[in-house]
C-alpha cells in the first residue's frame, strides 16, 4: 500500500521559506495533481517527496513509513522529469533497464520487464536508438517507460508534458491516464496547466505561494472554489469576478455594483451574508447566456442587458466579451450566429450557480 502523508511540511532555501507547512494525504492508487502558478512550490513539494530536496520541517511518509531521511533510492518511487533526463550515452533499452541493473536484477527479469514496458508504451521499434535520435513525444514515452519498469509504489511527474506541442500534449494526457489504469499505482503529478489538472486528476491540489489553497475532486474545485484565487485559476475562461456591496432592494438582498446595476443574492446564500458587506460576485461564462437561449436555465435567473465588445466564435460555442459595471466579463452562447461588436443583448444569469466571496479575505461565502 502506497499512501503518502505530508504533515506540516516546510522547506527553506537558506533563510527563505518557500513551502509553509503543507498537510496532505494521498490515498493508495490515487492520481493527485498539484497545480498552481509558477513559483508556488509545486516542484519543491514533489522533490521533497522524491527525496531530492531535504525537508526543513515536518514529516513525509510513504506507505506508512516516515521517509524524511531516506535517500531517493530507498523510497521505492520513480520520477519523470520535465526535460526527461534520459541518459544520453545509453540506448533506449539501456535507459529502461538501468534502474533494474543497479538493483542487480537478473538479466532475464530485466529483459522481460523492459519488453513489457516497451509494449505498454508502444516503443518496441525504438529500443536500439539513443535519446538524441528520438522525437519529443518518443522521449517522453521512454521517460515514462523508465519509470514503470521498476514497478514502484509511487510515480512522480514534474510537468512532463510542458515541452510537447499542443496536439501531442492532449494525446499524451490520455496515455498517462490509461497508463494509470493499467499499472495501478499512486501518482503525484505536477503541472501549471489547469486543463491538465482537470482532465487527469482524481483529486486536485491547488497551491499558491507555498500554501495549499484547496484540495478536492476536479468538479468540487471547479464548482465550489474556496476563494477567488482558485475561482480564477481553475476553469477556462476564468470565472468572472465583479466587486460589489450587499444592499437591500425591493425587500431582498442584492449585490449592487453601482447606483443602478445590481443582481439579487441567490436564495442559497441569503443567510450567509449581511447588508453592507463588501463582496465579490462571481459566475462562470457558462452561466451567463443570451436570453431565449436554447439551453434552459435551471432555477432562478436574473436578467442583464449588456453591450458585446467582441465575439469569438469557437465553433460549437461563441465567447462574448462584454463590459459590466466597469469590469470585463465573458458570456457563452451556444446558438451559432454572427454577433456584431456593439450589439446590445439581453442575458440571463443562472443565480443558483453564482458565487459570493468576501471582498476582504477572498474566501467563498458558501463555506
Amino acid at each position, binding site marked *: 500500500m502506497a499512501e503518502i502523508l505530508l504533515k506540516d511540511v516546510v522547506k527553506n532555501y537558506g533563510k527563505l521559506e518557500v513551502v509553509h507547512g503543507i498537510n496532505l494525504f494521498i490515498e493508495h492508487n490515487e492520481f493527485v495533481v498539484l497545480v498552481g502558478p509558477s513559483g508556488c512550490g509545486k516542484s519543491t513539494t514533489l522533490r521533497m517527496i522524491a527525496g531530492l530536496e531535504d525537508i526543513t520541517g515536518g514529516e513525509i511518509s510513504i506507505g506508512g513509513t516516515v521517509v524524511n531521511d531516506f535517500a531517493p533510492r530507498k523510497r521505492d518511487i520513480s520520477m519523470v522529469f520535465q526535460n526527461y533526463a534520459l541518459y544520453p550515452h545509453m540506448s533506449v533499452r539501456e535507459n529502461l533497464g538501468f534502474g533494474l541493473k543497479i538493483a542487480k536484477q537478473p538479466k532475464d527479469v530485466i529483459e522481460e520487464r523492459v519488453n513489457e514496458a516497451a509494449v505498454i508504451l508502444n516503443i518496441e521499434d525504438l529500443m536500439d536508438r539513443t535519446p538524441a535520435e528520438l522525437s519529443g513525444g518518443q522521449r517522453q514515452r521512454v521517460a515514462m517507460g523508465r519509470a514503470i519498469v521498476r514497478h514502484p509504489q509511487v510515480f512522480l511527474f514534474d510537468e512532463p508534458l510542458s515541452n510537447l506541442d499542443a496536439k501531442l500534449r492532449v494525446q499524451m494526457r490520455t496515455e498517462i491516464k490509461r497508463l494509470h489504469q493499467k499499472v495501478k499505482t499512486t501518482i503525484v503529478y505536477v503541472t501549471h496547466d489547469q486543463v491538465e489538472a482537470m482532465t487527469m486528476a482524481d483529486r486536485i491540489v491547488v497551491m499558491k505561494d507555498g500554501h495549499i*489553497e*484547496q484540495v478536492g475532486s476536479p468538479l468540487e474545485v471547479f464548482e465550489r472554489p474556496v476563494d477567488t484565487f482558485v475561482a480564477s485559476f481553475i476553469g477556462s475562461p476564468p470565472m468572472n469576478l465583479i466587486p460589489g456591496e450587499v444592499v437591500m432592494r425591493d425587500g431582498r438582498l442584492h449585490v449592487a455594483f453601482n447606483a443602478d446595476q445590481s443582481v439579487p443574492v441567490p436564495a442559497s446564500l441569503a443567510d450567509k451574508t449581511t447588508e453592507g458587506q463588501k463582496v465579490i460576485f462571481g459566475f462562470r461564462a457558462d452561466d451567463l447566456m443570451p436570453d431565449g437561449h436554447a439551453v434552459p436555465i435551471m432555477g432562478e435567473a436574473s436578467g442583464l442587458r449588456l453591450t458585446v465588445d467582441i465575439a469569438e466564435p469557437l465553433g460549437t460555442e461563441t465567447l462574448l466579451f462584454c463590459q459590466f459595471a466597469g469590469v470585463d466579463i465573458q458570456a457563452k452562447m451556444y446558438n451559432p450566429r454572427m454577433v456584431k461588436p456593439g450589439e446590445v443583448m439581453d442575458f440571463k444569469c443562472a443565480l443558483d450557480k453564482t458565487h459570493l466571496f468576501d471582498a476582504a479575505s477572498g474566501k467563498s461565502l458558501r463555506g
Partner: protein
Amino acid sequence: MSIVSVQPRRKSRRDWTPALLLSPAFLVLIFVVLVPLLFSLYTSFTNYRLIRPDSLYEWIGLRNYQRIFTDSKFWAAFGRTIIFLTLALNLEFIFGLGIALLINKITWGQRTLRTIMMFPMMFSPILVGYQFKFIFNDNIGLLNNALQSLGIGDGAIAWLVDKPLGMFTIIFAEVWMSTSVFAILLLAGLFAMPRDPLEAAKVDGCNSWQVFRHITLPFLMPFAFIAMTIRSLDVARAYDIVDVMTGGGPANRTELLWTMIARVGYDNSRMGQANAMAYVSILLSIAFTYYFFTKLIAARKYMGGAE
C-alpha cells in the same frame, strides 16, 4: 487547509559534502602555496642568505623593502615589467581579435586553421624562447640569414642585444605564444553569437563597422575577459622565455621583475631580499588577475549566465 506549523522544526542539517570535496584541493594548495608564502613573507623581513643558514633569524624589519624601493634598478625592472605586460596583453587582444575575425570568414579548411592556431598555446615557454633565440640570432639566425640573402641591410642586426630591439624580441615571442588564447576564445565567441541582433542592426541601418562596434564587440567582451583571466593566471611564464633568450641581459636591458628575483635569490643568494621582490611580483599578478576576474564576473552578469 494549510495550517501554520506549531511543531518545532528540525534544523536543516548543514551539508558538508562540498567542503569534503573541496578539502583535498585546498589542503594541497595550503601546503604548496600558502605555507611557503607565509614562510617567505617572514624571510622577507630577515637578512636571510642561502650560504649563511643562521641569518634566517636576523630580523631586519622593513629594510629589504626599503632597499628594493630605493633601488633604481628594481624600479626600472618593475616599470619594464608593467610595460611588457601592457603591451603584450593589448597586442595579443588586438591580434587575437583580428585572427578570430579572419578565420571566422573562412569556410574552407577552417578546422585545420583553428588547430594550427592552437599549437603555440601548447608550446613550452622555454621552447618558444629557444626557438626565437635561434631565429633572432645575429649570426646564424633565420631572420638575419634571410635578410642577407635578400640583400636587405648589412645582415648582422643584433636583435637580442640592441636596446629597443631586445625588448621587441621578447615581446614578439610572448605575443607569438599567447595570442592564440585570445584568438581561440574570441572565435568561440563569434561562433556562439546569435544572428538575430546582427540582422536587426543591419535592418536598423547600421553599416558593417557600426554593427561590429555596437553588437559584435560588446558580445565578445566576456570572451576576451575569459582570455585575459586565463592569461593573467600565468603571466609570469614570460620568465622562461626571457631566461632563455637574453637572461635579462645584456646590461639589464631586458630585465623583468621575475628574472631579477632569480638573480638576486639564487645567483647572489640574498633570499630575504629576493623574497621581498617576489612579494611585489605576487601582488602585481594578483592585481592583474583580480581586475580581470571582476570584469569577467560583471560581464557574465550582463550575459545573464551568473547564478
